């Protein structure tokens, strides 16, 4: 019957928000549980657990992933950025500032996912227009705001980026 020694563990080394972390994790460990429970980074939230609501989005090597269905072991050697890594601790990231300024959140549960997804878009080569923003954020659900303030918040940051490029 079952051995009481517990499941096997695999070693994982990741860079989370600029801090290197090495841990032994269960093979089935999900990235979101690793972040929330092992590292105490509870800013990342979970909702649908089916990769369709976008709440748990974090960046792995700059690419947005649903951490609810991403194995911690697959992040081995990667750079992971969560909502806690957006601000430098002194001033808010322009996206965070714009979300607050535009009332782009209410309950805030979906917000870390929207912020990380938006960051991935704005970190890209092209400054997105409204259509590109809506297309990019289609996979993130918000039940409070009705979305328009979120679009406006991201648009404003994009416009400032565009201004920076040309000015």
């Amino acid at each position, binding site marked *: 019957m079952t051995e009481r020694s517990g499941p096997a563990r695999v070693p994982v080394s990741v860079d989370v928000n600029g801090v290197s972390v090495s841990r032994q994790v269960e093979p089935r460990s999900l990235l979101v549980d690793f972040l929330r429970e092992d590292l105490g980074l509870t800013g990342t939230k979970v909702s649908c*657990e*089916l990769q369709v609501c976008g709440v748990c989005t974090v960046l792995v090597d700059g690419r947005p992933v649903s951490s609810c269905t991403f194995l911690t072991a697959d992040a081995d050697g990667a750079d992971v950025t969560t909502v806690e890594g957006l601000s430098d601790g002194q001033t808010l990231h322009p996206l965070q500032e714009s*979300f607050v300024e535009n009332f782009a*959140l209410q*309950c805030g549960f979906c917000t870390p996912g929207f912020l990380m997804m938006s960051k991935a878009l704005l970190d890209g080569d092209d400054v997105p227009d409204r259509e590109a923003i809506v*297309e990019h954020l289609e996979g993130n659900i918000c*039940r409070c*705001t*009705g979305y*328009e303030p979120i679009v406006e918040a991201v648009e404003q940051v994009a416009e400032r980026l565009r201004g920076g490029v040309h000015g």
Partner: protein
Amino acid sequence: MGENVVGRSVRRPDLIEKVTGAAEYCVDVTMPGMAHAKVVRSDRAHARITGIDVAAALAGPGVVAVVTADDISALYARFGHIVSDHWILATGKVRYYGEPVAIVVAETVAAAADAVELVRVSYADLPSVMDIDAALADAAPLVHEQSYDATGDESFKNLSHVDDPAEEALSNVAHEVTVGWGDVDAAFAEAAVVVENTVHFPMLYAYAMEPYNAVASYHEGALTVVSTAQHPYMVRDDLARVFSLPLSRVRVTSPYLGGGYGSKSYTKVEPLASVASWVTGRPVKLTLTVEESIYTTRVDSARIWVKSGFAADGTILAREFDIVMDSGAYADNSPLVMAKSVNRCFGPYRVPHLRAHGRSVYTNTSPASSYRGFGAPQGNLAGETNLDQAAERLGISGADIRRRNLVRKGEEILPGKRGIDADIPADLEMVVESLERDRKDVPYYGIGFGCSASDAGAYPISTAQVRIQADGSVLVLSGSTEMGQGSRSLLAQVAAEELGVDLSVVKVVQSDTSVTPYERTTGASRTSTLVGLALQRACADARSRLRDMAAELYSCAAGDVRDLPGGVAGPDGRELDFGAVVRQWFGGSAGEVTGVGLLRRDGATQQMPPFWEVGMVGVAVEIDPETGVVAVDQLVTVADVGFAINPRAVEGQDLGAATQGLGSALHEELVYDGPQLANANVVDYRVPRMKDLPRKIDLMIAERRDGVGPYGAKGAGEGTLNPIGGAVAAAVARATGRWPDRLPLTPERVWRLINGRTS
């Protein structure tokens, strides 16, 4: 007038915590030594439990305990604030697929989940009633073979039209309400036009994105619970009854909620976590999945028959409604939802003769309870589509039939209740003007609008405290829960305004039954109005105490001390700020002063309801005839809030509520397929996404200072949802030429409407 802090779209301090990831939600809360729970759930709709074998699960790695109904039989193992019919764990039989049968407690979530699979429950199937027709049929199997004592909830008696819940023969009717006046039959006989129709309102899920969760610790005769409860005080009452504890020994705290929308009203998972802790002696955390949350609480679906008689000029002569709601296996708050639906179905119109009858019906489906709008969306769909169909028959516009019948300010729509405290005809003109201005002349285009008035605010029992600190900063304490709607920011604005202090020195603390003062509920759009009033009184009380203390310091009469912003002035013009008054009165540079504000049914809030929440919306739709996909071309709303304490926050509530309404109008419906739901997940239960955004959004605010709340304010947050369904149905009818009789208007249904007309 002349306010400085209220009436401005100030930045919400809670939003800053939320964008950094620092905000604490219940799901983030841990307790030392905490174990984790997972729930064993029924896999059939209606069955007798013949045995539960927990041996294999108990032997699983890391398993601490498996709790079944037998383990908690010494407790009062039921809850429910109106009818305590809701068993914490299925006892004797299961009444719906997904009902909790046992709780596995283990060292980790994964270990608990593994062991859930090892619990063997044996059943003997019973015939089930899966919908209202089956439940109401002669000799239908009973969902409950016993009746339960009502808890005597005072507010429910006041809000419902039932004088005494009379004992009747057992049936599947959980609750029945009738309201009416005049001679309906005689009025129908005289009517020039009589219009009759039946509508079906879908079974919905609120989908607050944070699923229900709680962490509970029962220790030495005291219970501490942190949960996702909108109404921590109501949950405390249920838990105190379960464990026979004094209220003072039950502490319920609600941190930031990841959405509520009414779906986190009243007791949900708190008893499960609490009994698991009581059995194991350890703090226990229980977090549901979205699927489990859907099986915990959904929205009442409804079938509504409506008949209205009109004079030839469109004047309403009489209306009759019959509402049947599928309330699922347990009553929860459905009796109140039904009572409200009956009050709200006929609309803010002059109705000389009315008969409205509603039944809340038990079925072997997941339990229904509160949802934003409280029965209004269901009833309004019937009443408003009936009115628009009558306008068609009478050859007048949808706007004109409403202009003819809408009540004016001060008129009563429910006899003996507060008269309407809003200029609803003016709100209607704002919507019609905006919609018509951008009307497009293209095929398959239609506009629709809808009006509603909800008896809002619930029962007026609110308290608030302000604590003036030795440095002049201010703590505001309220039992009202911040679930996204913005009360934490709004209450700070009210306190800053009343005390004349800077917003940055005000901190609001909410929803901890052992710390913050009593608040009955956070629902029915009540916080701005009722907590706002209690807070104004608390600020006045604090000022009065500070004047008394200053009078001692000045050695003058209290009446000679004047109020200043953030301080006081003595008779000789000497000024002291609040902090100086506190420090000097106590000496030793310390101390604080507490102001208390109490609100009950008295004075301005004597007459029920405390205020009316108006819903006034318009939509324009453009339909793709090939696919039946409905695009929302225009969304127009009016927030008739009296005074907007934070205008951007009001707009946010309105767009959010309207968007949820568009979801149920166009996409959302839970579908039962046999004993279980076919779509208990966010893939198949589709909620609005960013690409569904209306092309034009016009959010207007009507501020006429006509509410009983602070500065003339009234509540917001539900109104805009209530009439959306009817407005969309009317717009689709005008675009397709055929009237739908149900929501949501999915592409298939709309395609069929179009196809039926053209074939």
